[in-house]
């Protein structure tokens, strides 16, 4: 039995307070590429990775959500405690705990370390961010700390290559093979326990010669400015404004390159393949469909460049602090900021991040409005419609198209806040739970993190275009091609196809909001993912096109055949419509009920229809 135990990988759990660098260390240990950001609450699930070791036994590393204490107040904190105690189904307590402590903010991390040590599990303490601590004059006698705690203490710099070598050496399974511990013991911390732990902590800090970090006067001044209720808000708006201007201005050239490449590919395909279904599938299904979505890659990259840079710099928690009071006034918990912010990349991680909200009703409100935040999948739809319908001119120094997209993002946020206010008014009285946030230090965005984050986003986008979007476009091409028109038919062939008939049927529903049958068809596969609608429009319009240049035709076709009212109505539809099945599936999982995804789908579709109807009628 012992031999069996010693042949399995050593199970290591990474524990620490939020934003101390656990995930960076996890990535360093496992070669993983989990998301790292300079704000708390990024990890809300346990993650597992592996590392090979010299003796062949290997390490299995668990990255746990950050927590300030083992007395949980939120779901993610409860996960950390339950994993340490081996309470989760199918997983025993870890063989070894690596307690990650931010050396710059030693007292807060050390307090958790004392609590973890009381569990009785074998433990190593990783003093992370030692480079920053040294630079800011933090004094720690590491040898004394190790003696006093009775555990090994290793300095690490998780974001630097080689920064965890000493820890890796210490984690060789052979060192821990003879360590046997009794099952971990935990009890709720009482006031006396807390007082005693606080006394122990003060004693430890005194004997290890801890000195608080120096704060640069420049950083203090910048912080005062950014956290000022007026100047801070103006700066936040300016940052977002510049971001959306850049999305349109900087992306124009690379988008043209991809567009021209797709046009050349389409022309080559039609010129060199014999006329028939294969040529039609390639040019009108694959290139005009999936190729049209690929054009928006540069905009996605630029948007995420800004988001990742802001995340890594430490600015976002300051924005959360600025907006806390305002969010409270519309009935949102202060802790809702990070989930709602994450929803701008994708609603799914945003909805999962609501686990950090302790109050169920606050959490439900945040889940309900998360899909209203403009996720990156909407960008291709917005990009296509704005480029087709809004002239690319400047108003003063501002790009008009950038202004419109800024307005659409603002509309998403504003409508989310209004829905939250509505739920506050009609959802009964509730207690406001304030935001408790440790503001991280400012830092220059780490180039490696930025490049890695952008590379991940490019991979996700390209694999979606080459995977589900391409497959849906092929199916849509089939539905738009067959059955063939009867002999003597005069209308476009697509009108006689399955898709054409479906479009004609749906048009009865969508005609009052200005959608033609082509848009109605595109909305159906667009339910799988929002950006699929762009590819679907490309395919549907290409089916009625006569030229070769199918991939570049969509913008001029839309500009020529849609009224401004129809385009704006579709934009309004996309601000609200829950055109993403994955999001609804996640809501089902997170709420453990079909009730909430059904309510969400109903209210969002109703809002989308009303908004599109009003927009169309007003603009007509």
């Amino acid at each position, binding site marked *: 039995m012992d031999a069996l135990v010693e042949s399995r990988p050593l199970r290591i759990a990474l524990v620490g307070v939020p934003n101390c660098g656990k995930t960076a260390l996890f990535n360093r240990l*496992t*070669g*993983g*590429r989990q998301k790292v950001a300079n704000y708390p609450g990024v990890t809300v*699930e346990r*993650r*597992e*990775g*592996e*590392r*090979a070791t010299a003796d062949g036994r*290997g390490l299995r590393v668990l990255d746990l959500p950050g927590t300030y204490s083992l007395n949980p107040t939120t779901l993610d904190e409860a996960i950390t405690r339950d994993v340490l105690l081996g309470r989760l189904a199918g997983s025993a307590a870890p063989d070894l705990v690596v307690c990650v402590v931010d050396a710059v903010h030693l007292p807060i991390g050390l307090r958790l370390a004392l609590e973890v040590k009381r569990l009785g599990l074998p433990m190593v303490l990783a003093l992370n961010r030692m480079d920053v601590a040294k630079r800011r004059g933090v004094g720690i006698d590491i040898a004394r700390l190790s003696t006093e705690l009775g555990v090994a203490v290793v300095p690490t710099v998780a974001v630097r290559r080689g920064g965890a070598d000493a820890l890796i050496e210490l984690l060789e399974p052979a060192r821990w093979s003879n360590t046997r511990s009794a099952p971990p013991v935990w009890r709720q911390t009482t006031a006396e326990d807390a007082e005693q732990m606080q006394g122990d902590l003060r004693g430890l800090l005194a004997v290890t010669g801890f000195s608080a970090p120096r704060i640069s006067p420049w950083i203090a001044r910048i912080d005062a400015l950014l956290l000022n209720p007026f100047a801070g808000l103006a700066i936040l708006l300016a940052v977002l404004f510049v971001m959306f201007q850049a999305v349109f201005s900087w992306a124009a050239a690379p988008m043209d390159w991809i567009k021209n490449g797709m046009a050349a590919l389409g022309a080559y395909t039609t010129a060199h393949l*014999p006329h*028939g*279904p*294969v040529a039609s*599938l390639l040019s009108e299904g694959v290139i005009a469909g999936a190729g049209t979505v690929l054009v928006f890659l540069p905009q996605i990259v630029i948007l995420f460049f800004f988001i990742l840079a802001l995340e890594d710099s430490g600015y976002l928690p300051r924005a959360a602090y600025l907006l806390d009071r305002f969010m409270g006034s519309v009935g949102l918990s202060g802790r809702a900021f990070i989930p709602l912010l994450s929803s701008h*990349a*994708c609603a*799914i*991680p945003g909805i*999962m991040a609501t686990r950090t909200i302790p109050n169920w009703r606050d959490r439900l409100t945040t889940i309900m409005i998360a899909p209203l935040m403009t996720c990156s999948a909407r960008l291709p739809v917005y990009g296509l419609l704005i480029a087709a319908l809004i002239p690319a001119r400047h108003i003063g120094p501002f790009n008009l198209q950038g202004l419109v997209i800024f307005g659409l993002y603002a509309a998403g946020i504003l409508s989310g806040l209004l829905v939250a206010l509505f739920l506050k008014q009609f959802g009964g009285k509730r207690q406001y739970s304030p935001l408790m946030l440790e503001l991280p230090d400012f830092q220059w965005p780490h180039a490696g993190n930025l490049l890695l984050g952008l590379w991940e986003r490019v991979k*996700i986008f390209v*694999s*979606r275009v080459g*995977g*589900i979007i*391409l*497959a*849906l476009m*092929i*199916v849509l*091409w*089939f539905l738009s091609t067959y059955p063939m028109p009867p002999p003597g038919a005069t209308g476009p062939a697509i009108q006689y196809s399955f898709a054409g008939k479906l479009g004609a049927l749906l048009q009865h529903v969508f005609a009052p909001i200005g959608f033609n049958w082509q848009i109605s068809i595109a909305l159906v596969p667009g339910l*799988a*993912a929002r950006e699929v609608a762009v590819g679907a429009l490309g395919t549907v319009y290409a089916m009625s096109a006569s030229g070769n240049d199918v991939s570049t035709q969509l913008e001029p076709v839309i500009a020529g055949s849609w009224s401004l009212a129809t385009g704006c109505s579709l934009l309004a539809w996309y601000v609200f419509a829950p055109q*993403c*099945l*994955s*999001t*609804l*599936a*996640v809501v*089902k*999982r997170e709420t453990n009920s079909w009730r909430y995804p059904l309510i969400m789908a109903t209210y969002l579709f109703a809002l989308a229809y009303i908004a599109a109807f009003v927009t169309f009628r007003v603009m007509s």
Partner: protein
Amino acid sequence: MSQQILVAVVVTLAATFCVWKLMPARRRLQILLALDAWSERRPGLAGWRTRWLKPRITRAGGIGCDGCDAHDPRSHRPPR
């Protein structure tokens, strides 16, 4: 005629792929586990199980349908 057959194969594969990707996670996991139990009794499929099936079973433990790549619990290749 050969063009028609080729297109029919491509469209069938694409439709199957869409159904697979948009299927609820629990159903997909059930199918993968059934495949796993079936292939376990066939030693010739051991390599395929390790390389193809196991990673997919891990991924199917994620959330919702597989239409979105935002949540991928795969662990990456372990470094030495």
